[in-house]
């Protein structure tokens, strides 16, 4: 890049070719007045407010600094008489756009500060007459149209940055106005409440509804950053606090989100001070038997317990485990962690299980979605090979079974930015999800037919010679077997099986194979099947024969679910790996940990989440320590799960809320939420981020790792007094990808992408290659497992429960944008719960009409495992014969219905396929 100096208001400022005057000024700390220019990533100059006009040495008249590029020798004057006079008049004109009462309602907005700064007379051109009261009918966002100065920032936010396309500047002349959809009220519009517009609105015309509420605090006391707990994107969020609660949130400039947030990350922090937060340790009352007949929640759960001191509760918790261990051996104990905790929590928990409990049965909720194991099987690396942001360098992106608009909204915004810049999207998904509108090809296949579709695509690129033969020769094994496996799948055969056109299959395959750079994403739509691993293997095989890995804009990206899935797995919170994915049955690895931990470690791999419950139901598992998990809501077939947890002799639940699982606990331990603690979390892009507490934990609640240490102490373990810092540093010493990282380094740098040096920390005896910077796509020359990736054979399973006459529908479960996982946090965030308050059964219009359904009447959905009562809605985006439900509503828990069948390799349950029927009851 070409650098030179320019002069802004007498100050010498460095500038680079191609940047704007305003960018140069901001970078150099020169505070040029501006309004409709937002310097954040994705915002383009609007240049409509005309408040950043400056004079130049070699140019007649004024130019907008936000849009005008720098040039060598440029002398910029924002303080010349003409510039100042013009700016002041422009600001005076803009001030006349607000009604007088509206201006009074928003005295401290960015615009009002500009009015004061340029000493404008805000009444000089009069004020707009009062036209409307603020629209307070939306739970998250209040629209005060009378405060709008029509600068267009909200339009940019919605159209260019988040690409939700809801807000426009409609009309013309003085009739120009901010509109939602086709001129609807925001509450009736398709607004997804990401709140990007609220964050950038300079006047308060769009503001968090909470600021208009009667109970709104007078002033924000302080603001501090944490990482959003709601998904694996790992957005940094700035929480504004008053009276010991979060009033509202803004996106902070994190490495993954660049200031963006989604509805959960912006409006979902109400749970932190929800009345049902656990604040004291609780012990089960003697007169409260464990009742497996149905789910209990919240206050109902609390009635079954009595408060206790930490000492009493910890003694009870620890001695329960110690007794069972001593009587039956460690094998009757299990630990379920959570991908919502920190890396230190995960590490200490598996260490406690392996050294204190003497068990190998240790797992966490990543099991319920795990989409990485087939990737590890293929290349020997258990993380994404390429970060999401690289999609901007991809010509084509293939997305299999993922709905990021809903589940990873900020990542979706980055994908949509790339699509707008020319990346072509191939979507493989039965649902016509929001991204379908932007897709070049949408293969809307029948549920459960992914393997056949991908096989046909693979066969086609091989048959047409479009595959990367050099890559296949040099870097793959198993190609011949693959050729045989896909042999039968011509486009026509696949078209018949999958219900998509042969032409579309051919088009998609060619598009991907011919792309100079193509990326591949997959999600839970791929993994949550009994053939989930096969779905992913078929995806990986297709991508690898096309050689789409190891270059910029290429690579494999399983979109992880929870905020610390990556870190929890890295830390070894898994039944079949030591920390760092070190193999359990390798004597060298075992001795490494036995030396480090100065104790013996149980031999062999343990049971997974669902298998632990099966063992409990069979009476083989007797003690369970659940930290942050909620199997009584998250596992498939809840009736059976409740029976299992109710049978446990000793259940300790450690959480921030009395969850459905806590209803079966013997001891409940109150934990701190992520925003109340320090630690590190690792996002889907392998960025490990440092967080510090924004609030104190309520009451007596403590950080998870500290509670685990306290239990360890009672079990007589020597490491129980380890500090937070020591835990991380020990973990970094045994987890290869963390090589070179330390607590101190992270504390200083806040966020670091690993591996720091791709060739070193994986401890390979051959180079794996990368383009120098870890942001780029890994594995340009080799793989962690060796020089060649392995195209694994498939197991060839079909969905385990096909529709039949008795249960004619295919039930698919998933999530809604506003709620996360079992809803224990988001359902307790008042804004989110108001936006999405009830479970809905999505039915395609033809089935909806055929069954004469109405959204006014609830229906019962029944499977062979259970039934729930739910409100049906007609959804034209869904296929005939398919019904869809979100998993997050305890009132109609979708997992009462789901089937307990696991993928043999990943041990992920088949959440995305079982047969069901709809019973119409006509009850309101």
């Amino acid at each position, binding site marked *: 890049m070409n650098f030179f100096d320019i002069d802004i208001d007498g100050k010498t400022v460095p500038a680079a070719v191609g940047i704007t005057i305003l960018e140069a000024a901001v970078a150099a700390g020169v505070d040029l007045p501006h309004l409709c220019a937002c310097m954040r990533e994705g915002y383009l100059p609007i*240049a*409509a407010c*005309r408040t950043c*006009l400056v004079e130049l040495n070699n140019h007649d008249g*004024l130019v907008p600094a936000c*849009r005008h590029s720098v040039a060598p020798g440029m002398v910029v004057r924002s303080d010349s008489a*003409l510039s100042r*006079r*013009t700016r002041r*008049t*422009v600001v005076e*004109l*803009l001030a*006349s*756009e607000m009604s007088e009462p509206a201006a009074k309602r928003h005295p401290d907005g960015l615009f009002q500060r500009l009015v004061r700064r340029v000493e404008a007379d805000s009444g000089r*051109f009069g004020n707009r007459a009062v036209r409307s009261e603020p629209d*307070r*009918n*939306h*739970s998250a966002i209040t629209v005060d149209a009378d405060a709008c*100065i*029509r600068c267009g920032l909200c339009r940019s936010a*919605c*159209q260019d940055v988040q690409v939700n*396309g*809801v*807000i*426009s*500047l*409609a*009309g*013309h*002349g*003085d*009739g*120009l106005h901010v*509109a939602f*959809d*086709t001129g*609807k009220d925001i*509450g*009736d519009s*398709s607004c997804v409440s990401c709140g990007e517009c609220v964050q950038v609105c300079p006047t308060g015309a769009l503001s968090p*509804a909470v600021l208009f*509420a009667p109970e709104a605090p007078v002033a924000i006391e302080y603001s501090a950053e944490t990482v959003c707990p709601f998904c694996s994107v790992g957005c940094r969020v700035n929480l504004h606090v008053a009276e010991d609660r979060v009033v509202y949130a803004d996106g902070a400039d994190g490495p993954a989100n660049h200031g963006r947030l989604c509805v959960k990350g912006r409006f979902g922090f109400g749970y932190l001070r929800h009345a049902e937060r656990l604040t004291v340790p609780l012990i089960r009352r003697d007169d409260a038997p464990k009742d497996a007949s149905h789910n209990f929640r919240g206050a109902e759960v609390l009635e079954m317990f009595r408060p206790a001191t930490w000492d009493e509760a910890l003694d009870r918790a620890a001695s329960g485990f110690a007794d069972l261990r001593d009587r039956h051996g460690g094998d009757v104990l299990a630990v379920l962690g959570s991908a919502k905790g920190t890396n230190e929590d995960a590490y200490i928990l598996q260490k406690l299980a392996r050294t204190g409990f003497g068990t190998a049965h240790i797992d966490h909720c990543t099991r319920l979605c795990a989409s990485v194991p087939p990737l590890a099987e293929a290349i020997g690396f258990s993380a994404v090979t390429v970060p999401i942001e690289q999609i901007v360098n991809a010509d084509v992106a293939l997305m299999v079974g993922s709905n990021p608009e809903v589940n990873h909204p900020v990542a979706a915004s980055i994908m949509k930015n790339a699509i707008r810049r020319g990346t072509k999207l191939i979507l493989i998904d039965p649902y016509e999800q929001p991204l379908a*509108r*932007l897709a070049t090809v949408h293969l809307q296949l029948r549920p459960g037919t992914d393997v056949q579709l991908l096989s046909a695509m693979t066969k086609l690129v091989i048959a047409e010679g479009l595959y990367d033969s050099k890559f296949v020769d040099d870097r793959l094994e198993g190609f011949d077997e693959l050729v045989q496996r896909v042999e039968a799948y011509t486009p026509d055969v696949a078209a018949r099986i999958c219900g998509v056109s042969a032409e579309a299959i051919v088009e998609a395959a060619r598009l991907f194979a011919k792309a100079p750079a193509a990326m591949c994403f997959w999600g839970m739509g791929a993994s949550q099947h009994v053939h989930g691993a096969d779905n992913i293997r078929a995806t990986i095989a297709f991508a690898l024969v096309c050689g789409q890995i190891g270059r910029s804009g290429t690579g494999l990206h399983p979109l992880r679910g929870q905020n610390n899935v990556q870190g929890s797995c890295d830390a070894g919170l898994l039944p079949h790996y030591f920390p760092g994915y070190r193999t359990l049955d390798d004597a060298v690895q075992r001795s490494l940990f036995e030396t480090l931990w100065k104790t013996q470690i149980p031999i062999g791999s343990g049971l997974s989440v669902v298998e632990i419950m099966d063992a409990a139901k069979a009476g083989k598992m007797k003690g369970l320590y659940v930290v942050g998990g909620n199997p009584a809501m998250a596992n498939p077939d809840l009736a059976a799960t409740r029976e299992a947890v109710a049978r446990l002799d000793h259940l300790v639940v450690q959480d921030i809320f009395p969850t459905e699982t806590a209803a079966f606990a013997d001891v409940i331990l109150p934990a701190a939420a992520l925003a109340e603690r320090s630690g590190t979390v690792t996002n889907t892009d392998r960025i490990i981020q440092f967080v510090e507490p924004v609030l104190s934990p309520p009451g007596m609640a403590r950080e998870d790792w500290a509670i685990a240490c306290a239990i360890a102490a009672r079990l007589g373990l020597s490491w129980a007094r380890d500090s937070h810092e020591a835990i991380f540093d020990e973990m970094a010493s045994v987890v290869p990808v963390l090589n070179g990282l330390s607590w101190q380094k992270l504390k200083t740098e806040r966020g670091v992408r690993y591996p720091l040096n791709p060739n070193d920390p994986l401890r390979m005896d051959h180079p794996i290659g990368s383009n120098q910077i870890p942001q780029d796509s890994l594995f340009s020359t080799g793989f962690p497992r060796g020089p060649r990736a392995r195209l694994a054979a498939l197991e060839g399973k079909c969905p385990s429960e096909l529709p039949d006459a008795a249960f004619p529908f295919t039930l698919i479960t998933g999530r809604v944008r506003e709620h996360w996982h079992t809803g224990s946090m988001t359902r307790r965030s*008042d804004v989110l*719960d*108001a*936006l999405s308050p*009830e479970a809905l059964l*999505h039915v395609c*219009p033809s089935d909806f009409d055929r069954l004469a359904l109405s*959204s006014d009447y609830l229906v019962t959905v029944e499977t062979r495992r259970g039934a729930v009562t739910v409100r049906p*809605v*007609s*959804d*034209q*985006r869904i296929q005939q014969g398919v019904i869809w439900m979100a998993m997050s509503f305890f009132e109609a828990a979708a997992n009462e219905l789901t089937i307990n069948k696991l993928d043999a390799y990943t041990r992920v349950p088949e959440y995305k396929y079982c047969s069901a029927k709809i019973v119409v009851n006509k009850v309101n």
Partner: protein
Amino acid sequence: MRSKHKRPRSYGAGGPIAGTQEIAAIETALLSHGTARDGLLEILLDIRDRQGSVSQAGLQYIAERLRLTSAEVYEVATAFPAVNYGATVPYGNYTNNCCDLVCALLRGPADIDREMRPGVCGGRCDVPDSEPAPRSFETFRAAGGYTVVNRLQRMPTEKNQILQNIAGRNAVGRAGVGFPVHRKWQSLIATGGEPVVVVNADEGELATFKDRFILQSDPHGVLEAALVAASVTGAKQLFFYLRDDYADLHAIVRRAIDDTVAAGLTAGLDVHLRRSGGAYICGEETALIASLEGRPARPRERPPYPTERGLQGRPTLVHNVETLYRLRGAWGAVHEDAVPVSALLDPDMLLYSVSGRVRKPGPKLIRALPSLDALVRAAGGMREEEELGGVVIGGSAGTIVPASRCGVPLAELLASGLSLGTGSAVVFGKTDDIRWIAEKMAGFLARESCGQCAPCRIGTAKMARALAGGPLDRRLLDDLASVMSEASICGLGRSAGKFLARVTPILTEHER
């Protein structure tokens, strides 16, 4: 929480569903214009022609078919008056066919509010008795028309010669800025890529009808020049962007295009006839380009110039009708008596649009006009019992020249800064109030502002209100004039500022 949850009725589109009749109208429009975004305005205008205007549900339906969001479609539908969105009366159902200023002069202000629709006028200020019949394709060819196109098809090397001739004639744009034509063409050629040529026939300036006169008389003259421009610049696409309100011209231009296509003159070139959206701003070249892309007609800041990055990022040449027509001299076309408008091939010949209180309003071809008095005389003089009050020269942001200055040699007026602009002249009488005329001009500018940038959107509205009544605050008006001319994005706001700066002293003087 304040809000009560609204029970969803359906997922996906939501809201009312378009009726079968409207869906049929939309599908018919899609058959003609395709489902790409750039056809959006044409689609909306087709539906307007079929059923008055598109409904909210119709917008939703179009959005789904074009794979746009409903907000994107709504934004476009509401940005163009011609789409008639939300209106209760059919578009163009107005009796005056003419802008409010001239109309008011002719019919009296009382009629205006009742009869005028908001929007650009119908360009019928001249109310002519008889209109020229367009020269047919055959007659045009017989007179040597299109031979240059055939020559270029056979001998591509001719291109350089034509470019040189254009440069030699010092041909400049006739839309106000006066930029040399050959430099625009060269810029287009230098940029490379896939150039586009656009004929800007969206004549929207107040009381201006010269382009209509040219097209009505000699449509092939314009088309020939456009084909030459396309050939020389290597364009593969030609857009004829015709003012929607010039409904009668559509058949003429359509016929002219069809004839050239049938004669094989457009080989290798896609020619599209597109309608404008009924707003003055559509004639601004970047706004015009935006509307051809199916976006709201809102000007974009330059640079980059359209010749470098225009329609869909491609180098784009936009010329107005008069500019193109005059270029024909560069390949040898000469004045023909049978076709009066061909007098424009003489670079010194000017075409005035004269309207107002004159006996014979209409297009006037005059070489070396001595004074504005002479222009009034050329239009048959003042109507009976009316005395000259003055002339508004140059349209909405033009200059009010009082009668006392109309006898001054035009050269002197031009030297002292008068700009003829598009050559429109609205003649008013002694009894007409100058302040009222200024208010009408300001009202036109305020109504036609696209609304995008603050100085123009708010400034023109404040200007119109200030001129409408009450004492004139000189300092405030000066600041307003300055901010509009210094800070607006495009020429509309800037010229509005200059207009206000010119008119304020006249009005203050007048009030005294």
